Every structure is written in structure tokens, then in C-alpha cells.
């Protein structure tokens, strides 16, 4: 098939990111030509400030060297301006008159700095701060001249001023508003910032209006005069008073523009063959000037260019960070407050710390931090998630590390960490490695960092820390992991959407699910297939058929794979109670199959480790015990203490309660593993406080706790209800677990599920609404009814091929 022609106008970050995304999903669809005004390949515009400040060189900030374009087979025209788009003939015309035809056109012309309409604005020495050329002019001027005036105290202006000061110039910042960064900071933080910049040697003229830029006889700038009459000397004037979407080319071609090229959620302009991304577009009336939204747009646009037709750009949530070394500020959301909002403020001017959090309807809606921004990422996450704060409100000001974080301390340590400090304990990745990868490879998202460095890609407990490092390294270009994340690369749908579709459209098979939801891959991947399998089975019990090939090996082989490829076998031992006959059989099996290790597990069971796969069925048969399900996203164990039977403190028969629960839940699949415990008294020897469902006996009945977790991050279970009878324990626990089974996303432990929906929601469904509870309980019993013990089924011959080699070759 002949390739389609894609022409990209604009060789900057948005355009090239779109091309990169496109090449990743449809490498052979287009013949690509890219036009760029500047005589450089794509570089990281965000890092111009560190270049100006002398912290980095231009070569450090190039994102795509010329060789990248060559390898991708892209026709790159640097220093070549497009002067016209001919939509009838479908071609672009350059300054030199040459024509290039297109099937699809991508406009990524970015923005142009706004130049104040004052006399003298065209004098030599009056520049904006937009590209590497401007940066080089500033560096050059700083070498020979003394006085600089920066007009505009916004992010860009302050970064320019700081850089020029570091290069030895006397710098005056002129700002119209009452305080600096008035769109990013409140007054208090703005004043603190001004103070600390003054300490670094910058001068400020606040509330001043520029009237004229005065030149000398050579046509070079010499001074700036203001409305108030003040005049100051200037060899260089940097205008940083805002940007305008660069729409001239599109407008001339008759493409609809209104403060930006107007695009749909698919980043398509009013001409369906023409797409636009980046600072030049206006999406739902908003033109973005930061990099994170551009990348989100690029992803969606690439998807549509690849003719996959899925994915919508819904707008972005922004946060701000100033890239001036040593000054920490962060703001996001409605930090100025709005009607009906309240503020929590911490102010410590002596040590230069100021924090303001704005709360409305029990949700965080804005944050403004100065001096200590370690929790910026965390607040931003809370903001985007729109999570109900509840009890968190009392501690929120003190940061994430103070919120009952007993397991993994120091999500906010990123700043203090040394380069050699280990971040990811699973994969042995140090901070320095992550920072280097982010800088060298131009990474902006957590997913990119995970893929490239492997940090946070195993157990995930360091995710917060990695995110923090990313935030600190790339500043405002940091891209928050979207809250409604797609399940995997096979789809843009998230877990909630997929669950809903399976339920509402009565989808019963993998194939019908992938077809209906337009999966990009023919049969999913190792991430989505197990999730879909679970959703099908849990939504349509006794109807959907389990697909062993969509299960992780442990659930396919009903044993736990070990690092050498052998398996471990844990027989069921309800409530942790066994007897002499079972122990004898276990001992005999261990001898007969030369099992290298026999170990007692944390869940009060006995583990036979190092069993060869072909021995599994024989081992199970000789044991004559049921599967202990120690390998699955399923019911694991119900731990118990000896309770009233033997213990002098026991108040109820906790052992029997545990056995009954384990009997009820036998063979239950769930979104993630499910662990229970029953203690016979509040001394809680069975450690019920860190279980998905913890039951603690008291003299007058049983207390139920939910959402505990003893794993990666220790979470204490929350009190759900107190009941009187053992039958009620089963009903309440069962109803809660069924709710979790039906609504949680795959691989969410109960604690994550509760964090998402809130404990009040659980209580309403399980405790308050008696009818609902009974329905949930009945649905649980129905879906578990008649499930076979997987070991017994395999002893009888099910899935035989799984356990026997095909052939043995000498």
C-alpha cells in the first residue's frame, strides 16, 4: 500500500511528540515531512532557563538529534518557514516557493511572544524570551553589557531575570500587578518570592506601566521610561508579558481560529484533514502554555492520525513550578479561593515557609506552597482525584509523610536524597539513575520512567517517591499520571469503563469484549487479559467461562511459581487447624518427591517449596487435601487464634468462626488476594487489624474491620460494624467481599477500593441497607456455589496438558 503523506508544520515539542507517539503505534503508515523555522532539531524549550543560568548547555537540551529524524525516515526541513497552506490542492508552500503535498497536515506552530505596543519596541536590544536564539542573545549581551530590564514578572520573566543576574548583569524586573506571579501565587507567597529574589540581587519596580523604550543614535536600546516618570538605564530589554497562539498561517488558510486554532477533542481542526496540537490551539476555549497538556494532546492526536479513532482529549489540570534553582514554589487549582471555600494556612516567614490549602465541600481545590514544596505532588494528586478528605483534613497540612504512613516512610524525601540513595528496592534503582534517565531521555511521565529505569515497576511502593523525583527534575512539565488510566496499551478504556460495558452489554467472552470495546490488539496482553478474565467471571458467574490462557501461571497451574521455575504447594488448612493424619501425609509427600523445603507461612499454613511442575498433580493426589489457594487473586487464608476453647482470655469460638468463613469462601476469585483473620479477644493474636476482613471477638459479639493490609504499605483496617451472632459475621463479611468483588478494579486490594469509594459508601451498602446486604450476600453464595476444588479437578484429569511435557529429547 502506498504510504500517506503527513506534513508537520512546526518542529517543536508538541509536533515532534505527536510524531513520536504516531511512530510508536503506526510506524509505517505515513511518509513524514517536518518544517521548522529554527535552524535546530527539536529541543526542550522548558530547559532554556537552565541554559541561560549556565547550568546546562544547548546540547544537553536537544531532545531529538538530527540522526533521530534520519533513522525514522523523516524529511526534516530546518530553517524553512511555511508561508501558505493550500487546502484545495492539499499542499504547503514554503518561503522559497516549493510545494509539498499532504494527505494529513499537522499544525504545531506554537506561540509567539506578545510585544508591548510602545514606542521603541523594535530597537536593537529589545528581545523576547522564546527560543535558543533569544537565550544566546542574552548570554552574549550579558558578557559585554551591564544593565537589563525585564518587563513582566511572570514565570518566564523571572527565570530570564534570574539567569541574567547569574550572568552578572544588573537586572530590574518591571511588573504591572501588585505582586509577582499573580496568576500562580497569592499575595503572601508572591511577596515572599520577591523578597528572596531581592536577596539574590534582583531589583523590582511593581505596579509600573512601561511608556517608552528609548534608543541611542545607533538605534540601540539605552533606557526605559515609565508612566510614573521614572527612567532606568538599559542595554537589554526582555519582554515577557505573555504569549499569543501562533495562528497566522492557519487563519490565512481560512481555518477557524478564535484565540488559537479551534480543535475538537480529537485535536482536529474544522478542516478534517488538518490537525493541530500545542500552544497554537484553542481547545474548549482554552489555550495552554505549559508542556504537560501538549503531551496529552500529542497522544490523542497521534491516535487519530493512526486512524485508530479512539481517545479524547478532555483538557488538562495544571500546576506551576518555577525553575529557579533554590526557590521552591508550587501552586495548583483555585489557590485564591472562591465562594464557600475555606483555607488552611501555615505561615513561617522567618524560615521562608508559607503554605495555603483551599478546601471546599471536603475536597482540596487549590494549593499554594512557598519554601517547602515537597508535598506539591501529593496535593496535586488529591486535587485531581477530587478525593473526599474526611479525617485527612486534620493532617493534610503536615504532608503525606504524616498521614499514618507507618509502612513506607518518606514519600516526600526526594529532595533530601543523595544520588546514590536507593529509590526502588525491588529493582535496585538509585535516585541518580532516575534523574539521569529523565534528563537524558527527556522523560515526562511516570510510565516512561518506569519503562526506562524499572523503578516502581515491581511492587510499586516507591511510586510516590519516583513521581516526586520526576516532579522535581522536570518542574512544570511534569505530567501527572491520569487518574482514569487506561488498563494498558491495548486500549484507551479504563477499568471502570470496561467493567461497565461487560455488565451493561452482557459480554461473556474475551473476544466479544475486545471486539465491542475496539481493542487495538487481537487478543490483549499480559496486563489486560487477566483483568478481563476476572471481570467476565465475577460479573457473570456460571455463565462466562474461565480462560486458563488468560491467567497468570500461578492461577493456571494452581501453584506458586518460584524463581527457578519450580512451584510451591500449600494445602488448605482451614483456620490454621490441622491434625496428625494430614501432617503425616505432608511428611510422606515431602520425602517421596524430595521436596527441598517445608516451611510454615505467615498465614498459618504449611508450604512445600521446590516442587517440579510435572509432580504437582501427583503431590496433590498423595496429599489428599484441597487447594489452599495461596497462589491466586483469590481467598487466601483465614488466620485464627485458639479462642474460647483453650485460651483463658478468649471470649468466643474464633477458631470455628475462621473455619466457617474459610468454608464459605472456598475457591473464591477476587480482584486481588483476600485475607481474613478472626481473633478471640481484643488482644488480637490473629492480627485481624491488617486483614481485608478482620473479625475480633468481644464478650457481647463480634467486631468487623475492613480494608487492612500487611503488605507493601501497612494499612490498619477500619471499623465497619459490630454484630452479635456468627451467622451475622458471615453475612456482613460476605456482603462486603461481594461488593469488593463486583466493584473494585483488578489488582486493587480492598484498601485501595475503600480509598476510592469511601468507607461511608461501604457502610451504606453493607450496614445500613439491610436489603442490599442480603442481596449482596446471596450473590456471593450464588457465584461460589458449585465451584470445584481446582486440585481435585486436575487429579481427575482437567487441563492435563498443562502438567506434562510434550516430548523428551536426548
Amino acid at each position: 500500500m502506498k504510504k500517506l503523506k503527513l506534513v508537520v508544520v512546526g518542529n517543536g515539542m508538541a509536533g515532534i511528540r505527536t510524531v513520536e507517539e504516531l511512530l510508536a503505534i503506526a510506524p509505517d503508515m505515513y511518509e513524514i515531512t517536518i518544517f521548522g523555522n529554527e535552524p535546530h532539531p527539536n529541543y526542550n524549550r522548558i530547559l532554556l532557563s537552565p541554559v541561560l543560568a549556565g547550568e546546562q548547555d544547548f546540547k544537553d537540551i536537544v531532545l531529538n538529534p538530527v540522526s533521530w529524524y534520519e533513522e525514522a525516515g523523516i524529511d526534516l526541513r530546518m530553517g524553512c518557514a511555511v508561508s501558505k497552506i493550500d487546502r484545495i490542492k492539499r499542499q504547503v508552500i514554503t518561503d522559497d516557493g516549493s510545494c509539498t503535498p499532504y494527505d494529513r497536515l499537522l499544525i504545531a506552530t506554537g506561540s509567539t511572544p506578545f510585544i508591548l505596543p510602545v514606542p521603541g519596541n523594535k530597537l536593537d536590544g529589545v528581545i523576547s524570551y522564546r527560543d535558543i536564539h533569544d537565550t544566546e542573545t542574552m548570554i552574549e549581551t550579558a558578557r559585554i553589557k551591564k544593565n537589563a530590564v525585564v518587563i513582566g514578572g511572570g514565570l518566564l520573566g523571572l527565570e530570564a531575570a534570574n539567569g541574567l543576574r547569574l550572568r552578572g548583569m544588573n537586572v530590574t524586573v518591571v511588573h504591572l500587578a501588585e505582586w509577582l506571579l499573580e496568576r500562580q501565587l497569592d499575595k503572601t507567597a508572591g511577596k515572599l518570592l520577591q523578597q528572596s529574589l531581592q536577596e539574590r540581587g534582583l531589583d523590582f519596580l511593581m505596579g509600573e506601566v512601561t511608556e517608552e523604550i528609548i534608543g541611542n543614535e545607533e538605534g540601540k536600546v539605552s533606557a526605559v521610561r515609565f508612566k510614573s516618570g521614572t527612567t532606568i538605564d538599559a542595554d537589554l530589554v526582555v519582554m515577557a508579558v505573555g504569549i499569543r497562539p501562533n495562528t497566522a498561517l492557519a487563519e490565512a488558510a481560512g481555518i477557524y481560529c478564535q484565540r488559537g486554532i479551534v480543535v475538537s477533542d480529537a485535536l482536529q481542526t474544522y478542516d478534517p484533514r488538518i490537525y493541530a496540537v500545542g500552544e497554537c490551539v484553542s481547545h474548549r476555549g482554552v489555550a495552554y502554555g505549559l508542556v504537560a497538556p501538549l503531551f496529552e494532546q500529542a497522544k490523542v492526536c497521534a491516535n487519530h492520525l493512526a486512524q485508530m479513532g479512539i481517545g479524547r482529549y478532555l483538557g488538562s489540570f495544571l500546576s506551576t513550578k518555577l525553575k529557579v534553582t533554590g526557590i521552591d514554589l508550587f501552586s495548583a487549582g483555585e489557590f485564591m479561593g472562591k465562594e464557600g471555600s475555606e483555607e488552611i494556612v501555615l505561615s513561617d516567614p522567618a524560615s521562608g515557609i508559607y503554605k495555603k490549602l483551599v478546601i471546599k465541600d471536603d475536597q482540596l481545590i487549590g494549593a499554594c506552597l512557598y519554601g517547602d514544596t515537597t508535598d506539591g505532588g501529593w496535593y496535586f494528586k488529591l486535587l485531581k482525584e477530587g478525593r473526599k478528605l474526611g479525617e485527612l483534613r486534620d493532617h493534610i497540612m503536615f504532608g503525606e509523610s504524616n498521614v499514618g504512613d507507618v509502612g513506607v516512610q518518606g514519600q516526600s524525601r526526594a529532595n533530601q536524597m543523595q544520588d546514590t540513595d536507593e529509590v526502588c528496592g525491588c529493582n535496585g534503582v538509585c535516585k541518580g539513575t532516575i534523574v539521569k534517565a529523565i534528563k537524558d531521555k527527556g522523560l515526562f511521565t511516570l510510565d516512561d520512567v518506569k519503562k526506562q529505569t524499572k523503578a516502581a515497576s515491581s511492587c510499586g511502593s516507591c511510586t510516590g517517591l519516583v513521581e516526586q523525583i520526576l516532579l522535581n527534575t522536570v518542574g512544570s512539565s511534569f505530567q501527572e499520571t491520569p487518574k482514569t488510566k487506561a488498563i494498558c496499551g491495548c486500549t484507551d478504556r479504563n477499568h471502570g469503563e470496561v467493567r461497565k460495558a461487560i455488565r451493561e452489554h452482557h459480554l461473556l467472552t474475551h473476544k466479544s469484549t475486545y471486539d465491542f470495546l475496539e481493542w487495538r490488539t487481537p487478543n490483549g496482553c499480559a496486563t489486560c487479559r487477566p483483568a478481563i478474565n476476572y471481570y467476565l467471571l465475577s460479573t457473570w458467574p456460571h455463565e462466562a467461562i474461565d480462560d486458563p490462557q488468560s491467567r497468570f501461571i500461578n492461577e493456571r497451574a494452581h501453584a506458586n511459581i518460584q524463581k527457578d521455575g519450580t512451584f510451591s504447594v500449600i494445602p488448605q488448612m482451614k483456620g490454621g487447624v490441622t491434625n496428625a493424619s494430614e501432617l503425616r501425609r505432608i511428611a510422606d509427600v515431602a520425602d517421596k518427591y524430595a521436596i527441598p523445603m517445608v516451611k510454615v507461612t505467615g498465614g498459618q499454613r504449611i508450604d512445600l517449596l521446590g516442587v517440579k511442575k510435572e509432580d504437582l498433580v501427583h503431590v496433590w493426589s498423595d496429599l489428599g487435601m484441597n487447594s489452599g489457594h495461596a497462589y491466586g487473586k483469590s481467598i487466601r487464608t483465614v488466620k485464627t487464634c485458639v479462642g474460647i476453647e483453650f485460651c483463658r482470655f478468649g471470649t468466643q469460638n474464633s477458631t470455628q468462626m475462621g473455619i466457617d468463613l474459610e468454608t464459605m469462601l472456598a475457591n473464591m476469585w477476587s480482584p486481588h488476594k483476600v485475607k481474613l483473620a478472626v481473633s478471640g479477644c481484643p488482644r488480637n493474636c490473629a492480627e485481624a487489624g491488617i486483614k481485608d476482613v478482620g473479625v475480633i471477638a468481644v464478650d457481647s459479639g463480634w467486631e468487623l474491620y475492613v480494608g487492612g493490609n500487611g503488605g507493601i504499605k501497612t494499612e490498619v483496617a477500619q471499623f465497619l460494624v459490630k454484630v452479635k451472632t456468627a451467622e451475622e459475621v458471615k453475612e456482613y463479611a460476605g456482603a462486603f467481599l461481594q461488593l469488593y468483588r463486583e466493584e473494585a478494579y483488578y489488582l486493587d486490594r480492598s484498601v485501595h477500593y475503600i480509598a476510592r469509594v469511601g468507607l461511608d459508601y461501604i457502610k451504606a451498602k453493607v450496614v445500613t441497607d439491610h436489603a442490599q446486604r442480603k442481596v449482596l450476600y446471596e450473590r456471593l453464595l450464588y457465584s461460589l456455589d458449585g465451584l470445584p476444588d481446582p486440585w481435585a479437578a486436575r487429579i481427575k484429569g482437567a487441563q492435563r496438558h498443562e502438567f506434562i511435557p510434550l516430548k523428551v529429547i536426548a
Partner: protein
Amino acid sequence: MNIIKGEWVHICQVDDIPELGSRVIERADGNIAVFRTNGDKVFALLDRCPHKAGPLSQGIVHGESVTCPLHNWQIDLSSGEAKAPDVGCARHFPVKVESGQIFLALP
């Protein structure tokens, strides 16, 4: 059984391997995993992930790749190459299918 180098050896029928699954040929020089895709294509790789020697035969097969069960590396079934940014290669063996029968050539 004994085999002669480079000669096609009959292994099994295509249907002996589950669709999107794999089975193992045990061999003194390292087991071989034989994979079947859902288009009934068949591939053979050394049953040893280039990362930490995980048994690829135990992974989940999707498209024309398998994901190693130990640390989720994705291996291309036809070339044995790991998917970027991971780097490594599992040895692959020539396979052919004739009227539903699978043959393998060992070097």
C-alpha cells in the same frame, strides 16, 4: 528419542498446544518452549528468558509475544528479542507446520 542435527523432527499436533499457550520439550541442553498463537502460528524458543532465565513457556501468550512470568519482560516469538527498552534475546528454533503437524529442526 535421538535426533539428527538440522533434520525436521515431528513434535506433536498443533491441537496438542492450547491456543495462546505453550508446551515444553524437555532437552538436556535446555528446554524448548513451543508456542501457538490464536492464528495457529507456531514458534519455538529456548525456554529461558534473557533477563533472569525465567521459563517463557509459563508466560501469557498474546499476539506474537510472550510475557515472562517472572518479571514481565515481553519476548517476540519469531525473533526471541525482548521488547524495548529491555534488551536481550532468547534463542529461537526453526519450526514448520504441515497438515496440522508440528516439526522442529535442531541445530
